[in-house]
């Protein structure tokens, strides 16, 4: 799978119009300068040689060097990925708490007031364009109310703590820097809440639908007729059986979040991997694009495998 993806990215980038040499030197550079740079970057070699070299390097864990900044791609990813993961983790936490709570309450009392508003909320967040929602939230909470910072990971002029893990919040805790701990939390609130709220709709709807369906099953009716109280039926018999589809959806959402939070990262100037990917595409920085796509694909594959293992563990009917 990874080989197919990395090969596809390699080919598509070379087919796409635009040239890294133009991006670095500009279109007006003379032929000597262009040829010299092309040679230095290895772009003058036949495509098949470039491809084989790329695969060889990839197998050895070498993602190459950025064409525009001449920085190792590994370093670029190591700087951007923790920012995206930090955002993804907090967003998923918020989305899970909010979404599953709303979905649960809705399923417990179907057609009630909470269920009605919960469904409206679910559809609303699902339908909201992320960039619009992000800008609206930014304008209200950062510009008009001034409660939270407008963007970035830290206030302007504040230097990040010494990197240990790359996760700003964790690093500031490890460096025992209280000021930066609070600053980084403040900067994390708006983007993670925006993303969390937008995702919570999917979570609430998936839990509500699955739970509602399960609550109609014969074994639940049988449990009720045996006089088992409602909360025991709900938590002991119904909820565990809704876990499988919900877990799958959560896993897929986490995967898509790592590479897919581009609009949120742009709106909040969050220096994550999606923003890095967009910039690299604009620059036609082949190694960076290839590196980021390979890393994101690997994470998606790992999460999918993790979910499959978890499902097999939870559900005895599933075996591999």
């Amino acid at each position: 799978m990874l080989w197919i993806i990395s090969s596809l990215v390699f080919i598509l980038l070379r087919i796409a119009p635009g040239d890294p040499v133009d991006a670095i030197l500009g279109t007006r550079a003379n032929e000597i300068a262009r040829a010299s740079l092309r040679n230095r970057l290895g772009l003058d070699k036949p495509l098949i040689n470039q491809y084989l070299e790329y695969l060889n390097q990839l197998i050895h864990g070498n993602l190459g060097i950025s064409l525009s900044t001449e920085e190792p791609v590994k370093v670029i990813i190591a700087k951007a990925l923790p920012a995206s993961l930090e955002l993804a983790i907090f967003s998923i936490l918020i989305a899970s708490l909010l979404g599953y709570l709303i979905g649960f309450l809705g399923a417990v009392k179907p057609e009630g007031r909470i269920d009605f508003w919960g469904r409206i909320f679910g559809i609303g967040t699902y339908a909201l364009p992320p960039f619009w929602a992000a800008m609206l939230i930014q304008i209200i909470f950062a510009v008009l109310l001034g409660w939270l910072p407008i963007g970035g990971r830290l206030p302007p002029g504040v230097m990040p703590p010494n990197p240990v893990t790359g996760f700003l919040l964790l690093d500031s805790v490890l460096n025992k820097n209280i000021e930066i701990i609070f600053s980084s939390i403040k900067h994390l609130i708006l983007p993670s809440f925006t993303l969390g709220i937008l995702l919570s709709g999917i979570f609430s709807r998936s839990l509500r639908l699955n739970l509602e369906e399960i609550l109609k099953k014969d074994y639940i009716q049988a449990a009720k007729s045996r006089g088992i109280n409602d909360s025991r039926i709900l938590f002991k018999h119904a909820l565990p059986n809704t876990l499988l589809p919900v877990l799958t959806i959560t896993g897929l959402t986490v995967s898509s979040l790592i590479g897919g939070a581009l609009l949120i990262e742009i709106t909040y100037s969050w220096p994550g991997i999606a923003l890095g990917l967009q910039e690299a595409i604009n620059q036609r920085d082949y190694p960076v694009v290839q590196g980021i796509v390979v890393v994101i694909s690997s994470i998606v594959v790992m999460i999918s495998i993790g979910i499959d293992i978890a499902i097999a563990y939870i559900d005895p009917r599933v075996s591999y």
Partner: protein
Amino acid sequence: MLKLNYIKNILKVTSIFFIFLQVSCVQNKKRENIIVASAGKIESLDPAQANTLRSLQILSALGDTLYKINNEGNISPSLAKDLPKVSKNGLQIDIPLKENISFHDGTIFNAEAMAFSLNRFLKIGTLNYLLNEKIKDIEVKDEFLIRIKLKKPSSSLRSLLTSVNLTPVSPYSYSNYKDSFNNKNFIGTGPYFLESFNSSQQILKPFNNYWGRKALNKGVDFINYTNSSTLFGAIKTKEVDVLISNSIDDMQRVSLNNMVNKDQLKSGEGDPIEIGYITFKSNKLPLANKTIREALSYTIDRELISKQVSFGTREPLRSIVPPHLHKEEFSPWPIYNPNIARSLLKKEGYCEKDILSFPLTFRSNIPADKLLALTWRDQIKRDLSDCIQITLNGIESTTVYKQLSEGAFEAVILDWTGAYPDPNAYLTPLLSCNEIKDNTCLKGEAVFSGSFWGNNKVQDILEESEFLEGESRLKSLMKAEQHAAEGRAYLPIWLVKPKAWSLNDISQPEFSKDGLIILKNLKRD
């Protein structure tokens, strides 16, 4: 009742959390450094590679140029001791250098260092095409005297020596970067040194051994945000002290200007250096027909476009050189007149049964371009729907630049900022051509600009102007522009002034003649 208590408790906890966060603010501290924000990431701080406004802005604070353009529009010495002395045949330029100037690494700035920097730029510089055709050799004549030998006389070279890209770098610190870029560091002679660099934040501190007038502030933090709304919000919420206008949407520019009018902000603006224009591909029908291009030049209502697209913040422009560089009013392109356009098109057989149809390409990632394209199309629908039909085609800018010289676009909206404030920095990149056949440029800058328009007269004038000085040179360049206007391969639209807004406790931003903020003049009241 129980539920209500729960809600109250949740609200209490949330409020305490928010209050705690607010109290813990780093921002409440009095800032020492001035925080300057703009859009765009800095990929390189190497003057040989830097080509974005943001990187040039930082380089202008970290380094010095040999000359600067003064308020009268003439060059005045900066690192040079005196004006350049040109030999009688115009093929040698001697530049005496100031003494007792040191680089940020403590080494001495001298003729060797200047020669090293110029040679390095000639070898690897992104804009080296500007110099390669002019410079034959660079000689160190004395410890503080440099001689530039030219291939042919070039009066434009002196203006070129004001370009930030030719900022000298320390040969000692760049010994490993003679033929490669040093993207993350910069060692120059400027009023600031680079304390720290990453692509989203650069910290500049005053250089204590600076030879000239020292910075009025304790340092500058340069930060970047990815979009216009965030930049706008950042100055509104006082998260940043100064905001630079590049990439600020026109609507937000208007809001910022309104805040200035209400004394909520200060603002400063420089001479306009960016032009917006449309290039017509002149080597393929229908736009190869000069009369049709001429007709099109009458169809654009610049006043309306300026109002609709930019709320009047972009000035209508009828020349391809910013008018102030000619030092007199000069607008050779015609004003809007749909009646003349119609009669010209009728002459070519359009309007009665045929409709002139052509695609107009705009850079989809630049909002002003899209609005310009939409407005022009609608304006033509209103005035000349029986004669012209425009189809719009949005393409991402990297692809546009790549395909421009391949002749992919019949008409395309572009912009241009001269590398130095001189008419030549606009005329040469758009008009110069090395090989012309039947009014088509086969090789040269006109190919890269996408017009393919070649004119021997223009080439002759451009070459002659290199032998001229002062007013006669400007007159000659105006003649070249007049010919370009008659050729109608370009259609100038608007002029963009560089602008910056600052908080009230910061001094009003001042601009140099090359459109960059003078950072050392910013001070906190």
